C-alpha cells in the first residue's frame, strides 16, 4: 500500500467544480483500497490565528492565494515553499496527486519537488487553463468562436493588453514548472492531444477517465403505448459556454407535432450571475418555449439519480470543447443516452458509444437530432449499448501500482 497526498484547488463540499469532484472521487477510491491518503484542499479566506492550514474532518484546508493570473503564478511563496513543504515532508508520501494549481500558483510543482525529491508527482489536466488565458476554454473572447491552437499572436488578439511576446513567456514559464511533473493524466484523448501538441512530452501523458462513485442504473422511463422518448434534461451551469441557449432555440425549431410532446427539464443554476446580455437572450428564448420547459434549479449529488431517472435523454449542447464532462459519465452509469455537440470531449465520449451528436452550435442540427431521438427504437438501441463498467477504476489502480516500480 502506498502513501498518497492529494492536492486540490478546492474542497468539493465547499466548491463543486469538476476537478474538485474528480479528485475527491479518486481520493475516496484509493482510500477504500487501503492506500494511506491525505487530502489537501485549498480554500478562501483566512484561518484561525493566520495559520496556513486548518481542517475539515480528515481533510487539510490550505489557506493561500494566487497573485498573478497571467502567469498563473503566486508571490505567496511561504505557504508553498515553507508550510506545504514541511507538511509534505512530515507526511512523506510516495505519490503526490495534484489536481490543480489555480488559486495556489503554478509554483506548486517546484515546491512539491523541493519537499519530496523522490516522490512521484502526478498532475491531472482538467481544462486548457495553462494554454488559454480565456478561462481555459479555447474559445475566442468576445466572439466565442472555437479556437484550435494557442498561438501568441492570436492570444494577443483576445487579450490586447498582453503582447504576443508576453504570451510566449507565459507558456515558457508554465512549461518550466510542468517539467517537475512525472506523469500527467488526462480524462480524454482530446485534451491529452491538445496538451501534447502544445508542448507536453507525449510519453508522460496518460489518458484515464475520471472515476465516479458507484451509481445504480435506472430502468428506462415507462412509456404509454405509442409513447415517444420525449423527455429531455439539461444538467449543468447556465453560462454562455454550456449552450443552453442553443437547446432552447432548437426546441422552438421543432416541428409542431414534436414540439407538442417534448419536455425539457433544466437542472442548473447561475443564470442570475451571468452578463445582462446573455441573461436577456436566455430569458427571451425561455419565453418562446415556456410551455415545454421547467427550470428545476441546482441539485445536490444525492439528487442526481432520481432527477436523471425522470428523463429519456440527457442533452449536452456545450459550445466549448469540454474535456470529459462528469455528466456524460454519470448519464452512462445511470443508464441514460446522450445528445451532445460533435466537438472535443463530447464527440469523443458520446459518438458511437453513448448516443447521438449534432453539429456543435447549430440549433437546427440539434432539433433534427431530437426528432430522431424521440423514436423508441433509437432510444432502445443506445440504451442497450450503455455500459456501467468503470474501467477507469482498474486503470487508476494499475497506474498507481506501476508508478513507483519503474
Amino acid at each position, binding site marked *: 500500500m502506498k502513501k498518497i497526498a492529494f492536492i486540490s484547488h478546492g474542497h468539493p463540499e465547499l466548491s463543486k467544480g469538476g476537478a474538485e469532484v474528480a479528485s475527491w472521487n479518486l481520493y475516496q477510491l484509493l482510500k477504500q483500497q487501503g492506500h494511506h491518503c491525505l487530502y489537501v484542499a485549498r480554500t478562501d479566506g483566512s484561518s484561525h490565528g493566520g495559520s496556513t492550514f486548518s481542517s475539515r474532518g480528515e481533510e487539510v484546508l490550505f489557506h493561500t492565494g494566487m497573485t498573478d493570473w497571467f502567469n498563473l503564478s503566486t508571490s505567496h511563496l511561504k505557504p508553498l515553499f515553507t508550510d506545504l513543504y514541511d507538511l509534505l515532508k512530515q507526511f512523506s508520501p510516495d505519490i503526490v496527486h495534484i489536481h490543480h494549481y489555480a488559486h495556489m500558483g503554478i*509554483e506548486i510543482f517546484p515546491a512539491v519537488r523541493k519537499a519530496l525529491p523522490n516522490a512521484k508527482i502526478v498532475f491531472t489536466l482538467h481544462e486548457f487553463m495553462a494554454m488559454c488565458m480565456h478561462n481555459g476554454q479555447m474559445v475566442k*473572447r468576445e466572439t466565442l468562436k472555437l479556437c484550435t491552437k494557442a498561438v501568441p499572436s492570436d492570444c494577443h488578439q483576445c487579450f490586447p493588453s498582453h503582447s504576443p511576446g508576453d504570451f510566449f513567456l507565459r507558456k515558457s514559464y508554465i512549461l518550466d514548472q510542468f517539467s517537475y511533473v512525472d506523469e500527467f493524466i488526462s480524462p480524454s484523448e482530446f485534451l491529452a492531444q491538445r496538451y501534447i501538441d502544445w508542448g507536453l512530452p507525449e510519453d508522460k501523458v496518460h489518458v484515464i477517465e475520471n472515476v465516479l462513485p458507484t451509481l445504480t442504473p435506472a430502468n428506462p422511463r415507462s412509456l404509454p403505448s405509442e409513447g415517444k422518448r420525449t423527455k429531455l434534461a439539461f444538467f449543468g451551469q447556465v453560462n454562455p459556454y454550456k449552450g443552453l441557449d442553443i437547446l432552447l432555440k432548437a426546441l422552438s425549431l421543432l416541428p409542431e407535432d414534436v414540439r407538442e410532446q417534448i419536455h425539457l427539464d433544466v437542472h442548473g443554476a447561475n443564470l442570475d450571475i451571468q452578463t445582462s446580455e446573455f441573461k436577456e437572450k436566455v430569458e427571451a428564448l425561455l419565453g418562446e418555449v415556456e410551455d415545454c420547459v421547467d427550470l428545476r434549479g441546482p441539485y445536490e449529488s444525492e439528487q442526481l439519480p432520481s432527477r436523471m431517472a425522470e428523463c429519456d435523454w440527457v442533452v449536452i449542447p456545450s459550445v466549448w470543447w469540454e474535456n470529459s464532462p462528469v455528466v456524460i459519465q454519470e448519464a452512462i452509469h445511470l443508464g441514460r443516452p446522450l445528445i451532445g455537440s460533435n466537438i472535443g470531449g463530447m464527440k469523443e465520449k458520446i459518438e458511437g458509444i453513448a448516443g447521438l451528436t449534432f453539429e456543435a452550435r447549430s440549433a437546427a442540427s440539434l432539433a433534427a437530432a431530437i426528432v430522431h431521438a424521440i423514436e423508441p427504437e433509437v432510444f432502445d438501441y443506445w440504451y442497450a449499448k450503455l455500459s456501467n463498467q468503470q474501467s477507469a477504476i482498474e486503470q487508476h489502480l494499475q497506474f498507481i501500482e506501476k508508478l513507483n516500480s519503474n
Partner: protein
Amino acid sequence: MNKIKNVARRLLGKEAPKPYVIDSVAKTSTGYCVVGWYATSTVQRVGLISNENKPLASDVTFIERSDVVSATGKPATGFQLVCDTELDISEFQFIVLCTDGNQLKASLTLQGDIQPIDVPSIDVSKMSSSSVKGTLEYAIYVDEYVYVTGWLLDAGKTKSFDLNIKKAITKDTNLIRYTRSDVVNAFADSAESVNAGFILVFTLDSAELVPSVKQLSIEFEYADKLEKLSTTQIYNGKSDQMTNAQRMLNAWQAHSPSHLAKADMFIPMLDKMYPGDVKPSVRRLDFGNAAASPSVSMIVPLYGRIDFMRYQLSNFQRFINAETVEVIYVLDDPKLANEATKLAREMAQIVSFPFSLLILGKNVGFGKANNIGVEYARADNLLLLNSDILPKSMQWVEKLLETSNKPEVGIVGARLLFEDNTIQHDGMAPMTVNEYPGLLFNDHPKKGWPIQLAPYTENEEHCTLLTAACWMVKKSDFIAVGGFDPMYILGDFEDSDLCLKIEELGKRNMIRRDVELYHLERQSQNLVKPGRWKHNITVLNAIKYNDKWKSKLGDLEGKL
C-alpha cells in the same frame, strides 16, 4: 504657490481621491487598449474622447476586480476599453462620467513611455515688447553650455542673439531657425510666422554663472531697436537628464539637412549630461550556492521590465549547468531596486539555480551596465545576454563556448528569433537610410523571415557585426579593447563599435547559426519617422559612430 495650494487642499481635506485608476495603456495593431477600474458608487461610465470632444467608439469589457474591492473595501468595476483609432495617444483623453454628473478627463501615456513634458503654448500676454512678438520658452544649462528655445515673429531674419548674463562672456553661439506649426497656426495671417522658431546653444567662458540666475534673457536687434526676451524656466540639464534631453531634442528636425548639419551643437551638452566616466554605487546580492569555478559568466542588464528575470531563471534552472555558468543580473534602473530585490528573493525560492543581482545607484545605459557587470565576472568567458531572450536550442552555452574557445575567434553571436520563429537577428550589416545621407546605420538582414527561407550550410561563419543581445567573448579580449565605449548616449551602436574594435585586435567574429534563441525585441524605434527625442539621440550616436569608423564601415558596405 502651487505647493501651498496643495498643502492647503490636503489640510482642508478637499482633495478627494480619484474615483478611478488606469492600470495599463497598450498599443494594439489598430488602436489602443486601456485597462483599469473605477469606484462603482461614484462613476457611471468611462470612455475615450478626442481632443475635439468627439467620443471614440470603443468596446468595453467589464472585469470583476475582487482585488480592488478587498483593498479599498468599496465596490469597484474593472474595465477594458479597446478602441480602434488612428489618432495618436496625445490626441484623445480618458473620460469619466460621474454619477453626480461631473466629468473628469485624463491624458493617457503608453506603458513604458515617458510622461510628455510640458510644451508651453503660445501665450500672447507674455510678449515682451510691443514692436516684436516672441517668447523665450525655456533654457537648459549644462556647465558652460546654455540651450534656449522659443519663437520670434521676424520671418527668421534675426541671426544674431546675445545671452544676457552678467560677467559671462560668450565664446561661441550656434543657432537653428525653423518653422513651427504652432506659431504658424497662432498667427495665420502673419507672413512673419515662417521660420519663427529658434534653438540657440551658447558656450560661455565659465560654468559658474548660470546656476544662480533666476531669470535669463537674450538680446537681439529688430527694426533697429535692441529687443529682449526673458524666461524664468531654467533647467539644470544634469538633474533630470531624460526629461531635459527630451526638451532639448524634441524640436530638432534631424531629417532636415540644415538641422542635421547642426548636430554638433547638441553633442557636447549631451556628453556632459551623460558622462562616460560615471561610477554608480553598486550593491551586490547573491542567491543560491555559486559555482566554484564557472567557465562562463553571463551578464544580463535589466531596465524597465524586470519580470524577464522570472522567465529566464526558470529556463536556466532547466537547461543550464549551474556548475559551468554564473549569472549576474545588472539592474540599471534604480527606481526598480525594491521590486527587483523582491522578485530575486522569490525566484531564489522557486529555483535552485544560483545568481547574483547588482543594483546600480544610477541609470548608466546598456554599455556601461555591461562593463560594470564584467568587473564582477569570475569566468574567462563572458556571455552577454539581453533580459528578453530565452534559448530555443539545447546545449546553446556549450556550442557558443566551443567556438569562443578557438584562439582566433573574437565575438561569437547566435541566431535570434521572434516568438513566431521568424528571424530577428542573423548578423548585422551597415545600411544607409535615405533621410540621413552619408550615415551608416545597423541593418538586420532577413529580419522577419521564416527560418525555413534562411537555410545555412555552415554552423559557424564569419560575421563582423553582431548584436550584443547575445554574445560570447573572451573576457581578456573584452578588457583589451576597454569594453563598451561609453560615448554612445543611452545605448546605440556600442555593440557594433565593440565588434569592430575586437576585429582590430586581429580576431574574427563568428555567428553560430545552429544556436537559436528567442529575442522578444521590444518595439524598436522607427528609424524613418522623425520627430522624437529618442530617435534624435540615435541619429546623434550614428554621427559619432560614423565619425569613428568611417573607413572600416565603407569597406564592409562595399563587400556586401
